[in-house]
Structures are given as structure tokens and as C-alpha cells.
């Protein structure tokens, strides 16, 4: 709130205190958003995230809203005077005081919360042989150099050492124009010292994230929404740890295509599915553009899990042959509300992991749309809380700490 009058007023202090209370509440609210997974619906902007916290009130012992009262106006018994909003919010409006207060929170704080709530580890860039950056630091001494870099103190020290060894340090001489004899320290060429630079090599901390998704006809708006939410948070999290993060967006049906971010989220295309083609493209890109020796590579793939059974085997072959030896950081495969549970991508990969054909730290598989009681949700009528909490779980599973492998 802007203060109009220049005179400091009493309310300024109380208002400031109120804002403090609010920011305390905002941390609480953020915690709740993470717990329930509602945070997945939010987006930060310009490094800040705006969250709405409910209006606070001093509670008293008071009556509940029994949804009845006295009104005025024309009309007879049985007339409808108003209707609730179709959103169903109208009925509860009795206890909602105002629309709440919007608070903007630093994105760093939000990610810190993410770390605390999801117990995510700090990511370690892998030590690579290549160096991205060479920094020059003047922290060495040499015997040769330009006069502008002369190290006077060291030069005089060397001179005194030499003279002490020769026993001439205490000799006094009368300089012309002076009556009293003085000690004289005179450097010769071999005493001179110069500042010298050194090269410091900084290991590369580049990362590249591949976001790939199925764009066959079966990926509808609801599934794309989940892809959108998950990839935003994965991106935010990984970006926290690297100086430079490249993102590649890929979509595929039976053929793979690289697209920009906007298209990735909005593109719809009916078609068949061949998952292996996208992994082939990524493998090619790793050779040509993002050599894994120089980059930390993260691959996230989203699909509804519908694939040909033969293609699954091709996929396994590609991952085994082209990815493992390059030492990727991780591959995350997310299956969103499959149409068929049996012989889906998830079940195939799960089986492969169980049989030891994949390392479960390297290849992480997540399934969204699983219902505790009934197996799976086959349509997109997932309850909102389930959706949010499963996304949160998925993110945790994709980024969770592991023993064998660095992520």
C-alpha cells in the first residue's frame, strides 16, 4: 500500500506488522499448496510466483451460516430470489471473507519449499573432462616479465636475502648530499620478480533437457495439461542447478519432429504411435549437438502408453545400445492415463526393470492415473486432488535421490 502522507504514521507500523503476519501465512499456504499438490496448477512469472491466501480474521464464538435470513422486496412465497453460481461456490460464500490477499513470493523460496516438501536432493553436475570456461587469475610469480607487472615487495625481499647472504646488508654508505651514512638496498636483474597469471579451468555445468511427448490422436487436452504442468516444474527444478540449460522439445506420432516450446504444448495431431522414433532422434542429437561428455542430459518422455508391442522391443534396444554408454543423467518416462493397462509402455518397462534389463535409477518410470481401488482411471474424469497429488508424486519419483547414479 502506498503511503500518501509524508508524515510517518502509527498505522505504518501496524500495517507493516500485518504484512509480516501475512507473509508468515503465505509460507503456511505454500506448504498447503505443496501438500495437496495444488501448486501444480500455479505458474511463476519473472522469478516470482503469486499465491492467493485467504483473508484472515480474528475468530470469535459465532453462529454458523444456516443459509437463511430476512430480505426485502416484492414477491410471494416460493419465489426464487437468487441462484448459486454454477461453480458451486455461492453456497459457501457465507464464510469466505472477501477474495483474499495476493502475495508474490520469490521463485527461489518456492523451489526451496519444493526441496523440503518433496525431499529432493541437490543435483550434482557430472564431472566431465571438458572445460567450458578458462579464467585468468594473477596469483603467480615469475622472474621475467614486463615492468608494469613488477612485484616491488617481492623484488626487495629477494634483494635483501641476496645481500644478507653476501654479508653486505649492514654496510652503510654516505650518499652525496647527506651527512649520515645509510643502508642501501639495490636490486640487480636476478632479484627482479614479476606477477604472473595462471589459467583456472572451470568444469562445464551445461545441461540439456529433452522434453518429448506423444502427439498421436489419443493425447487429448486433459493429458497435455498434465504434461504442461509436469514439464514446467521439472524445468524450473533443473534450471536451479545449472548455469546454462538448453531445452529441446520433441513431439512424435510415427515420426519425430523438433518443435518450439509453444508448439510442444499446443500441437495436436491425430496419428499412429511409434515411440522408438523419438528416442532414435534424441540419440542422434546427443551425437551431433549435445555430446554427453559436455552436457548433463535429462530426458523426459510423456505418453499415454499406447504403443506397438514390437516397437517396445525396438525401444528397449535403442535405450540399451545408444544411451547407456553415453552416461546420461537420467531418462524419465511418464505414462498418463493409459487406455489399456495391460501391455502398455509402463507395464513393459516395469517388467524389463524387474528382470534386471534396466537400471531403475537410470530409467525412471512414473504412472499418472492410477486409482488405489479400481486400478486405473480409464477416462479423464480424475478427481482434482488425485490429479494434483499424483503429479506431485510423479515429480518426486522422477527426481528422487538415488544411490548409484548422479542426477
Amino acid at each position, binding site marked *: 500500500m502506498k503511503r500518501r502522507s509524508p508524515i510517518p504514521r502509527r*498505522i505504518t507500523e501496524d500495517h507493516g*506488522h500485518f504484512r509480516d*503476519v501475512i507473509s508468515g501465512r503465505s509460507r503456511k499456504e505454500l506448504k498447503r499448496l505443496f501438500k495437496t499438490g495444488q501448486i501444480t496448477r500455479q505458474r511463476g512469472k519473472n522469478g516470482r510466483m503469486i499465491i492467493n491466501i485467504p483473508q484472515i480474521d480474528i*475468530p470469535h464464538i459465532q*453462529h454458523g451460516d444456516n*443459509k*437463511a435470513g430476512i430480505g426485502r422486496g416484492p414477491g410471494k412465497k416460493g419465489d426464487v430470489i437468487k*441462484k448459486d453460481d454454477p461453480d458451486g461456490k455461492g453456497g459457501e460464500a457465507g464464510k469466505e471473507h472477501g477474495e483474499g490477499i495476493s502475495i508474490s513470493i520469490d521463485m527461489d523460496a518456492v523451489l526451496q519449499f519444493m526441496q523440503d516438501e518433496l525431499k529432493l536432493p541437490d543435483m550434482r553436475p557430472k564431472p566431465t573432462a571438458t572445460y567450458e570456461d578458462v579464467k585468468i587469475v594473477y596469483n603467480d610469480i615469475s622472474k621475467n616479465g614486463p615492468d608494469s607487472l613488477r612485484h616491488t615487495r617481492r623484488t626487495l625481499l629477494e634483494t635483501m636475502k641476496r645481500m644478507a647472504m653476501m654479508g653486505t646488508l649492514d654496510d652503510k654508505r654516505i650518499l652525496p648530499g647527506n651527512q649520515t651514512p645509510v643502508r642501501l638496498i639495490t636490486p640487480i636483474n636476478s632479484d627482479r620478480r614479476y606477477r604472473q597469471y595462471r589459467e583456472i579451468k572451470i568444469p562445464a555445468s551445461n545441461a540439456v533437457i529433452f522434453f518429448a511427448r506423444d502427439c498421436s490422436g489419443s493425447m487429448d487436452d486433459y493429458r497435455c495439461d498434465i504434461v504442461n504442468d509436469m514439464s514446467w516444474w521439472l524445468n524450473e527444478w533443473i534450471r536451479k542447478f545449472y548455469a546454462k540449460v538448453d531445452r529441446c522439445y520433441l513431439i512424435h506420432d510415427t515420426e519425430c519432429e523438433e518443435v518450439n516450446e509453444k508448439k510442444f504444448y499446443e500441437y495436436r495431431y491425430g496419428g499412429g504411435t511409434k515411440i522408438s522414433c523419438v528416442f532414435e532422434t534424441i540419440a542422434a542429437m546427443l551425437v551431433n549437438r549435445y555430446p554427453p561428455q559436455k552436457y548433463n542430459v535429462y530426458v523426459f518422455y510423456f505418453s499415454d502408453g499406447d504403443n506397438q508391442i514390437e516397437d517396445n522391443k525396438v525401444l528397449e534396444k535403442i535405450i540399451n545400445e545408444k544411451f547407456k554408454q553415453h552416461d546420461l543423467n537420467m531418462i524419465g518416462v511418464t505414462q498418463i492415463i493409459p487406455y489399456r493397462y495391460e501391455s502398455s509402455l509402463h507395464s513393459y518397462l516395469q517388467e524389463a526393470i524387474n528382470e534386471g534389463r534396466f537400471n531403475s535409477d537410470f530409467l525412471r518410470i512414473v504412472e499418472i492415473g492410477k486409482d488405489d481401488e479400481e486400478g486405473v482411471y480409464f477416462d479423464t474424469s480424475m478427481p482434482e486432488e488425485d490429479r494434483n497429488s499424483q503429479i506431485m508424486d510423479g515429480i518426486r519419483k522422477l527426481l528422487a535421490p538415488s544411490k548409484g547414479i548422479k542426477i
Partner: protein
Amino acid sequence: MSRMMSGSPILMGNNSVPGVKIHKEVRDVLPEVFRTCTEFGLDFYPTIIEFVTYDEISELASYGGFPVRYPHWSFGMEYEQLARGYEFGQHRISEMVINGNPCVIYCMDSNTLVSNINVIAHALGHNDFFKNNIFFSATNRGMMNKMANHGSRIRKYMSRWGKEAVTSFIDHCLRLDTLIDPAMAWKDRVIKEAVIRDERHYEFPDRLRPDHSYMDDWVNPLDRLEHQRESIREREAAQQIGLLEEPAKDIFGFLKDHAPLKPWQQDIISMLYEEALYFAPQRATKMANEGWASFTDFNIMCRQGLCSLGQKNDGAGIVEYSKHKMLVLGGKYSQNPYKVGYELFMDIEDRWNKGRFGQAYEDCQDMNEKENWDKKLGLGREKVFEVRKHYNDVLMIAEFFTADFCEKKEFFEYQRYPNGEWKIVSKDFHKIKRKLLQRYTNGGLPDVRLVDPNHRGKGWMLLQHQYDGLELYVPYVNETLTSLYRIWQNNIVLASRDSNNEEIIFLCKGPDLSSIVSYKRSSYEESFLT
């Protein structure tokens, strides 16, 4: 100036009071306004008028009119709401009146001249109400100084015990400040000195003296004596452990005197108690007070014609006045305390002018005659002044909300149905009146009473909600009970009823929300057996 002094002494906002500024155009018409108000019959305290900006009036309003109060974030919260509401154009506070002697009126400087005259007339109505209404007779008229004292004392405690500790204690107290008995304002406040006395006062049953000793068994029957001895024993036992004789409404006051608190906490709670008592009559007379002030400004502006004061031509201000009035009272079918109070006063004046009261009028069966009933008594003016002197909201509704009034003003009772529709359920006068009375009784808050501060002999506090068809709002009740626990430092039990009219008992065993258990009556009793 001399004309102004003819009424009450008036301390007008001018340079003699430092820091007070007033519009010149308003200053020129002020004597006329005061004279008209005095002629109308208003009897008010000396008045200070101050013009402030919206920002300052928001600040004043958030402090309840006292800019010298103790520091607390809840005032900051009020300020945020008020200032933001003004900036977004949702509402505006046009005036603020402080009950005191002298009475302070804050006006918004951005109002037009007509609005300001209206506001001043309205505020003088409030001032008159504060001075004359019987429910304000016990309030402290020097509350501004008192509040300033409280503020400095609380600041002192904050610097000594830490702002956090004091603020959180105030937080807990503020949740309880509706649990008071407004009648306590009339009770003599004496500072009790601790008296240590080690003697016992014996009480004996009253005996009648018979003429002959053999009559004794007849005039003083044994069971009567036994009954008296029993009640004496109970009374003595109660005195020994400080029990109450009957359920007390003044829970906050009881905590002030008996809760195991540190001296600074006791001091803070007594200050907050006093402030709560000060604000209590304003809650109980909101409708009457606002109605009276609106009735006053209508009389001054329209009937006495002050609308055109300071305007170029006659009647020029009436549109502006109507606009202002519209904002306050709302539309034809709006329902707010300002409007109900105003219409009741108008109705009372009309009825007593025409003599539409008393047995003869009630018994009249001829609709035609009743319709045109006019005895030309002209008692209306006298009656409204009487009403403003002796009535509060509940009494006013109880006495003057008649079936005629209800029908004429088209009141109805509505209810929400599960399908999301809000329907008119009845236009029955008795039901509507009952609902209205319910709303204004006890300021619309639940009547919670302290039954026993030594419940089950364990020092638990037993509270009873006097259920009247409206259930409690459980989340807030839980929060309040935890605060009570923190101050009483022992378990709190609150008995109430739920919407099915079954007894429900809240038991608070600790200072956080997780320690509240709610029982059905029978299972509560059982929980002590196991």
C-alpha cells in the same frame, strides 16, 4: 460566533485547535447547521470537527476512531481492507464520530459541500444519541485519554517482555472480547485490595420464635431447617472455592479476575476488557443509533431545508443529498441496519402523529376506518425523542416492528435450498420478527455462559451455549477454545447443540487445534467412566 454559542458550547475546528483544518465554505455555514440542529431539539456534547483525507480516515476507522491505541496487527488488517476498498471504489467512509466529551467528528475532505453538511448533521445525530441514550450512560467520556494510557502501558510491556509475547497474548484476548456482559459497565469498579482475614463468619438457619417452646417443632419444621442448612452449606462451599451463584455471561471479566496470569497479562486483559465494555453499547444500539442519525439528517436537510445552504439557488442540493442518502440506505429493497432504523423512526413519528396506537386502534375492525385513522395528535416528535432515549435495537424491534410495518415494507424470510436456489419461504410476520429479534439479541452473537469454573472438581471451565436454533461455527469455536485454554490454563468444556438439536460437547485439552474433541452428550459422560 455568538449565535453559535446559543446552543451547546461548540469547539469548532479552527486555528485555536492545533492540527485541525476545516474547509472555509463549511465553516461559513456551520453556525446555521448547529442552530438548526439545536432548534430541532438535539442536545449534544461540544463538538470538534476535523477534515481528513481518505487515507487518514481509513487509519482512524481501523483504530475504531482512536488513533492512540496500542500497536497490534489487526488494526493494520482493517486499514488494508478499508484503504483498498476505497481505492477500488467499493465503499467510502464519509464520517467517523467518536463518543466522548468533547465529541470528535471526522469528515472526508473530498466530499461536496452538501455531503459535508449532511455528514455533520448526521454526526450531530450520533452525538445526541451518545449523550442521551440510556445504554451509553455508563460509558467513559474521556476514552481518548484512557486509550492513550492503555497504548503506552502496552508499549511498555512490549519493550519489557518482547513484542512477540505481548502481541500473541493480545491475539488470544481479542478472540474472547465478545464474551462479556455489557451490563457490567454499570457495576462499580473498585480496586480490590488483597485482604487476609483469618476469621470465619457463621450462618444459621432462620428460626421463627414460637410463643411456647412446645410449638417449636410446628413453626420450625425439621425439613425446612434441614433445607436451609443445606443451602448454607452449599453457599459456604461455593464461597470457599470461588464458585458462581448462577451462570455468568461475563466470561472475559471472570478470566480477568481469576485466571492464573502474570501481572502484566492481568493488566493487559483488564485494559482490553475495559475497551470491550466501551464498544459493547455501540454494538447493541447500532440500528437505533444509525437510524436516529439518518432520521436527524433527513429532518435537518429536507424538512428544515438545509440542502440549499451555501448553494446558488434554492433546492439545488437536493439531488446531491439524495445521492448520498442512496449510498447509505441502498436501494428500495436493500436491507441494512441504517435503513431499518431510519424507517422505524419515520414509522413511529407517523403513527404517533396520527394516533395509530393504543387499544382503540388495535381493536378497530373496520379496515376502511383503520386505513384513514388520523387523530391529529401530533405526538410524533415527542415520541421519537423518547425512543432515542430509552431503546436499543432489540427493544425497538420488539416494540415498534408491527405487522403493518412488516407488510408495508415488504419483508420476507428466505432460505437456501440444496439445489442452489434461494427461495422466499414465508412472509409470516411472527416468523420474521422472531428472526430479526434473534439477529439483534446479544449483538447477533451466540449467548455463551460460564456455568462452572470448577467442572468435575478438576478446575475445568464449563461453558454453556444458550441454543436458540442457530448452531455454532465450529472452526472458529475451536480456535476460540484453544485461546481460552491458554488463558485459563486448564481444560475447557463447551456444551451446545448441533443442527439436529442434539447436545454436543467440545472438550479442549490443550493449546492447539488437535487437542479438541467433540462428543455427544452420552459419550462425554461415558468417557469419564472408563
